Structures are given as structure tokens and as C-alpha cells.
């Protein structure tokens, strides 16, 4: 049996990037299309069940159009069973009663599909600690469990402690909440995995996104299927040795990230020129080169401190004083030194 594990669609959310309203609308549309494509894939590949592990919507009160879209897709894919577990963002409105939509609650619910069971529970304050002892699964079946929360050592209202689920005959613990794919062993029998989200919404959601395709048989096999329209990429550009803003822009423009993607560009290294306003200048010049661009200036000024260290005067005293501060962040020291020397030289701050 083929099953898709996905989560964290966050339909209706804003993009966590600086986008024009047109691009933001396009991105929201793409997030919806990502779910449609996933279901289309499922229909093409003969997938029989889709596990939706929470945060399908971005709000406890999603807009009607988003609900209609989501449940409409489910309703049309009649041959597929959808198991919908609510996360921490999509709790308020109950889902409609559809024949192929299976839901969960604050108590363990198990659906028996013959050789496989699919169980799930929606975390809340009342069940956060007791849920571990109340789960009982048959050892002679392939048991899939769905939950939504942060894996941690300690169990809580929003945290899941996998160690308390070890030895419970779980073959696959399908999780939602973390927006990137990750899989780890649960115990000698099973494993747990985050599928990640289908599309990244911001620069803290880097890399490929998609879903996990599960195949049950003698044993459970999983493979991550990357399917996102666009990826968020992070590139650090060291500008040490570059002589001007123009050179920096030229170097940045040649970064090998696809135009359709979203780029977070971090400028780092020692700048031999004045970097005031560098972030904005680079952003404004290059913002059309990619779908979305974010620029962060983490450079520090290139300072020739050697000559100051041996100086008798106040510059020398200042440099020696700042450099002698123990346990201080080096980047912070450099900023203080650059600012102090600039002020002492009489340059405009």
C-alpha cells in the first residue's frame, strides 16, 4: 500500500519575505497548487492514503476560500483516504463530514485498514502527558501513528517525547510541525519523521520541500519526494578583498541560484570600503534577479590595526583597550574599533 505523509501546508499564510503584493498572491497560489499536485501525484501513483499531519491552515480561522479549496480537493479525490490531524494553527473550525476524510481528536483514534492501522491524537494540555500510556497497537500489523508537535526529551502540550513511544509497536510515526524533512529511528522496530512542508514560505525554510512516500509491505519503506515549485536558498558572499559596492554587486549578480528561487544573500567578511547602506543598495539593484531577495550585511570593516597597536597616542590606547577586553564577541569589537577610529579621524559618522 502506498501512503503519502505531508504536513504544514499553512494555506492562507503570508510569505515571510519582502514580496510585492502580486508575487505574494502568486506564492499563495503556488502553495495551494502544491497540495493539488501532491494529490494528483497520489492519484497517478495509486496512493491509497494521504496523512495530513497538522497545520494545514495558517490560522485557527482560515478564510472560507482556503477551506473550500482544501476540502474541495479532498472531496474530488474520492478514491483516496485523507487522514487529517489538526496542528496548533488550524484548530477552531471543524472539518466537514466527507466520506474519504478521517479525522482525529484529543483521544487516540485508530483506523483499521486491514494490514495497516493509522492512529492519531491531537495534542492538548489535557492529554499531553497521559497519551503515551493510553496508546495500544497490535503487534501483528503495520502501525502508523500521526502527531503534530516538537520532538523533545520532555513531553508537553506542544512537545512529543519519542522515547515514551518506543516499544509501542509503531512502525512509522508521521509528524508535523517542523518545516524540513528529517527522519530518525524510534526504536528497534520503527522510526519517526517530519515530512516538512510542501513549499517554503520564507528564508528560514531553506532547501527542498515535499512529502514522504511510504510503501508498506514486508517492511515499511520511505522516500522523501522533493516537489516544491521554488526553493529558498542561502548564500554567504565574502566581500573581503573587494574594493567597492559596484564590485560587490557584480559578484552577487553572478551567484548561481535559479531565477525562480528565493535567495537570502548574507554579505560577510572584511569590507575595505564604506558599507553604509550596502544592504539596501544591493537589494534594490538585484531584487529582480530572483523571485525574492533578502540581503543581510554581516560584514565588518577591514582595519589595519597593526599600526595603531604600536602608537603612543589615543588611537593606540583605544585599540589596545578594546582588543584587551576578554570574552567579548570579535565582531562587536571590530564594530567598536571601526566606529571609534572613524570618530577620532573626524570622518562623518
Amino acid at each position, binding site marked *: 500500500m502506498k501512503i503519502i505523509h505531508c504536513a504544514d501546508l499553512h494555506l492562507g499564510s503570508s510569505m515571510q519575505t519582502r514580496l510585492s503584493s502580486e508575487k505574494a498572491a502568486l506564492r499563495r497560489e503556488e502553495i495551494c497548487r502544491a497540495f493539488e499536485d501532491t494529490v494528483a501525484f497520489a492519484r497517478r501513483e495509486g496512493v491509497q492514503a494521504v496523512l495530513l499531519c497538522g497545520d494545514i491552515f495558517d*490560522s485557527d480561522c482560515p478564510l472560507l476560500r482556503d477551506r473550500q479549496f482544501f476540502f474541495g480537493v479532498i472531496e474530488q479525490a474520492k478514491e483516496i483516504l485523507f487522514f487529517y490531524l489538526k496542528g496548533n494553527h488550524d484548530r*477552531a473550525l471543524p472539518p466537514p463530514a466527507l466520506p474519504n476524510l478521517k479525522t482525529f481528536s484529543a483521544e487516540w483514534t485508530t483506523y483499521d485498514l486491514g494490514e495497516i492501522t493509522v492512529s492519531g491524537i491531537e495534542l492538548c494540555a489535557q492529554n499531553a502527558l497521559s497519551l503515551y500510556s493510553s496508546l495500544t497497537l497490535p503487534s501483528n500489523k503495520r502501525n502508523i501513528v500521526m502527531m503534530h508537535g516538537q520532538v523533545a526529551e520532555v513531553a508537553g502540550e506542544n512537545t512529543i517525547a519519542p522515547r515514551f513511544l518506543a516499544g509501542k509497536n509503531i512502525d512509522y510515526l508521521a509528524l508535523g510541525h517542523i518545516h524540513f524533512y528529517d527522519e530518525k529511528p524510534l526504536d528497534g522496530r520503527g522510526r519517526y519523521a517530519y515530512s516538512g512542508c510542501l513549499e517554503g514560505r520564507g528564508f528560514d525554510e531553506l532547501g527542498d520541500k515535499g512529502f514522504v512516500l511510504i510503501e508498506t509491505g514486508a517492511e515499511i519503506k520511505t522516500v522523501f519526494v522533493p516537489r516544491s515549485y521554488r526553493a529558498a536558498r542561502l548564500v554567504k558572499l565574502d566581500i573581503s578583498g573587494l574594493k567597492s559596492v559596484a564590485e560587490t554587486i557584480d559578484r552577487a549578480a553572478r551567484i548561481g541560484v535559479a531565477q525562480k528561487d528565493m535567495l537570502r544573500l548574507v554579505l560577510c567578511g572584511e569590507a575595505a570600503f564604506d558599507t553604509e547602506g550596502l544592504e539596501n543598495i544591493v537589494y534594490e539593484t538585484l531584487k529582480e534577479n530572483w523571485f525574492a531577495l533578502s540581503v543581510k550585511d554581516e560584514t565588518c570593516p577591514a582595519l589595519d590595526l597593526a599600526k595603531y597597536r604600536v602608537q603612543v*597616542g589615543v588611537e593606540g*590606547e583605544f585599540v589596545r583597550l578594546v582588543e584587551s577586553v576578554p570574552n567579548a564577541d570579535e565582531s562587536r569589537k571590530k564594530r567598536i574599533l571601526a566606529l571609534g577610529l572613524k570618530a*577620532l579621524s*573626524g570622518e562623518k559618522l
Partner: protein
Amino acid sequence: MKLLECTIENYGKWHKTRFVFNGSLTCVCLQNGEGKSTLASFLKAMLYGLESERDNATEKGERSLYYPFSGGAFGGTLTVEWRGERYLIERFFDKKSKKKDTLCVYDGANRQTNALGECVGETLFGLPVEAFERTAFIGAEHTDISLRYGIGERLGRLNLSSGTVEEAVAALKAKRQELRSDRRLLGKYTGKIPQTEEKLVALQQEIFAIEQDEKRLGEAYRTEAELCAVERGQSEIVRTQARLQERNAPIKRGGRWRSLVWAVAFTLLLIGAASCFFEVVLGVGLLAAGALTLLAALFFAIGKREGNAQRSAELARELDEKTAENAGVLSRYGVSTWEEVRSLLSDMRRLVSELESRVVSLPQKRQELSETEAELFRLKEEAEIIDATIAALLEAARRLNGKYLQPMTESFLRYLSLLGADFIGGVALDGDLKVYFESGGARRSSEHLSDGQKSVVELCMRLALLENTYGGELPFCILDDPFLYLDERNLAFAKNALLVLKDKLQIVYFCCHESRKL
């Protein structure tokens, strides 16, 4: 560092002139205007170069002042001894721009070397040119202003401290003010930080209001869904009523067939009864058929009636439940007629549309909040860096002052003694290196000293400064007629002091009168 000799090719009025410096004390007695200052300038220029001339400068710089009228190579050579090595510094200057000046340094083996770097003076003394000028060149300064200088001002005039630190700190504080003012204006702080904080609060309030709208939207969705359910329920009620009526109708519609069956049954019974009189067997048979038909009709009628009754009862129950449910919903919303329901539904839909248009902006507002929080963090970090820089600068100035205070006090008192401080009597320094003296049991300021005494005191101060601002080897010292204001007795002391002083550092002593010649 020791001056050995210099050759002036062309510099001011000096032309192809060679000076040899006699060990530790060289006395140059020239009349006014004969080139003492020119020589001093040449020595400084050999070590530190000359600044370029600016076209719009109101005063001529040294480059213009000393450029030879006759043209020719403008510069010369200076031979020095430094760290036991001999170096020949050869410099020639352009008329206008220092970019066109040339500098060559040769070692003792006459090989060109880079040992003295591009700025020879800074390499030799570790000091910028301003500090060199104000330490190595000592004239007859005896003004009240000089003596009133504290350590901060003295070091500041050497570009070592205070002056530049004060300006730097002022500039940083101005920058800091842009971020957050020190004082409130009309009860509020001004600056980018308070502005951003205000924006943050406004956004939070806006988001809170939209979140309330979001909750109302959820309620509105539920209400709309309920009213739509009531509408559907009403349609269901109508359909159920129709079905109920249909259930009752079959009894009438099917009556014709039942009547026929009844008629057949009774006919069979009558004929059977009548036949009994003629043919008993036939009669009995017909009677039996008639009876069976009657029984069947009765059974069928009873069964169907019961079935119909049961289904009707179910439908009736459903109808009641649905009606009650709808009534419950309607009473909750305070409506009783269908017009009112439709009107309420229409209002709900308008409300949903209105709330959706507000709620749709919530994600962007949250994003804007996040960006504003990041901006506030950055501004606060920038302010904190400025504060830390100001503190470090002030501490550096304080340390620098402290570094010089004790040694300069000791040096000053030593030079006072060397120059015969007894004649001044009770002169001392305060904690800021300002000069005072005691008289009549009270502390008096240096303003009360005579010009001659001021000269000596200032000279001692300058020598103390000279001794303590050069970390390594002491440079030479040009004394440009420093004893101008001394009387005969004090002059004798001063001359003796110089003779002692020459053992500590090389002195080039200028004077313009035989009486002050050493």
C-alpha cells in the same frame, strides 16, 4: 635618534648648504631673518614631508613659503643615526603636490632601503607630525595659556588625546541622539528608536484588532453555516412533509385494487354460498377461495397499514426533530419568519465579506511586525555599540592621561631642579598637570609668576613632555631662542641646564644674540 648632518640643495633661502651637527649640542647663532626657522622647517620636512598646496588656501603652506625663488631642485638630504645604523634620507619636493615628491633612503652601505618606511618621522618617533612639532620644537612660549594647560589639553595639542577624543565623543553622542534623545521633548523621547517602538505598538494594536475580527469571522462563519443548515433543514422539512403525505396517499390510490380484491373475495363467497345449494364441492371450494382471498386482503391491508404507520411515524418523528432543531436555531437568533432568516443570512454574508477583507491583511501585518521588531533590535544594538565606543574612548583618554601624569610630574620636577628651580620656589603640579606655586601658605596660580619664571617653567614642562611622549629613542630637540625673556642670572642657570641636558638628548640651539650663545 641622532642628527649627523644635512645638505640643503634648495630650501627657502638656503642653497647648497651643509650643516654638521656637533654631537649632542649644536649652537646656531643667526640674526633674525637669516634662516633659523627655515632650517627647522627643512629638518621637519626631511622627516615628515610637506603637505600639498591647496589652491583655495587662505595662507601659504610651507611648500609655497620655502619653494626656491630661483627654481632648482627643492629639497636635500639628511643623515641620521638610528638604532646604531646610519641612514641617508634624500627628499625632493614638487612645487605643489606631495604626490610628485620623491623619497629615497640609503643605509650605511649606500644601498637603497625601506627600513624607515614611507613616513620616516612616524617610523623613527612613533608620533604624527603635529605631536613632533609640538614636542621637538621649543620656542620662547611663556604665555599664560600654555601654563594653564592641563594634561588633557597638552596631550590634545600633540594629537595624543583629549582634543580629538572630545570631538569624537561629541560626534558619537550626536549620532546617539539621532537614535534616542537624552531628554524628553513634550514628554517623549525623540529619535529612530522611539519612533520604531511607537510603530511597533501601533502594529501590535492593529494586529490585535484584526485578530478580534478573525474571531468574529469564525463566529460569522459558524452563524452563516448554521443559517444555511436551517435553510437546508427547512427544505428537508418540506420534502419530508411531502413524503409523509405520499405515504398516506397510497392507501387511497391503491384503494381501487383493494376494492377489487374485496369484491372478488365477497363474490367468491356469495357464489360459493349459492353453489353449496347446487354443488356442495364447488360451493365449498368457492367459499374457501373467497375466504382465502378475504384473509389475504385483510392480511395485506393490515401489514401495509402497519408498515406505513411505522414509516409515517418515523417520518413524523424526523419532521418533529428537524422542526424543533430549526426552531431552536431560529429562536437563538431571534427570528421567526423566513424573510427574517434570509435577511439575517444576507447580513451575515456581508459581515463575512467585510471581515475577510480585513483579516486577509493579518499575515502581512504580522510580517511587518516581525520586520519592525528586527529593525528595533538593530537600532538598539547600534545605540549600544555607540555607547560602548564612547565609554572606550573616554577610558582610553583617561588611561593615556594617567600614563603621562606621574612620569611627566617627575620629569618636570627634575628639569625644574636642573634649571635651578630654587629661584622659583614652591612650584608644583596639580593632578591635572597644571602649574601652581605656594606662597604665604596658599596655593597660587602660575599667572602670578614673572615672565622669566614662566619661561623656565614652560620650558621644563615642554622638556618633560618631550621626554615622555617618545616611547623609544628621544629625538633631537630644536630650541628656538627659548631664553629670550630671562635675565642674566636666570640665563646662566638655563645655559648650565642645557649643558647638562645635552647628555640626555641632542639639542640644536638657535639664538639670535651673542649673549645667549652657548
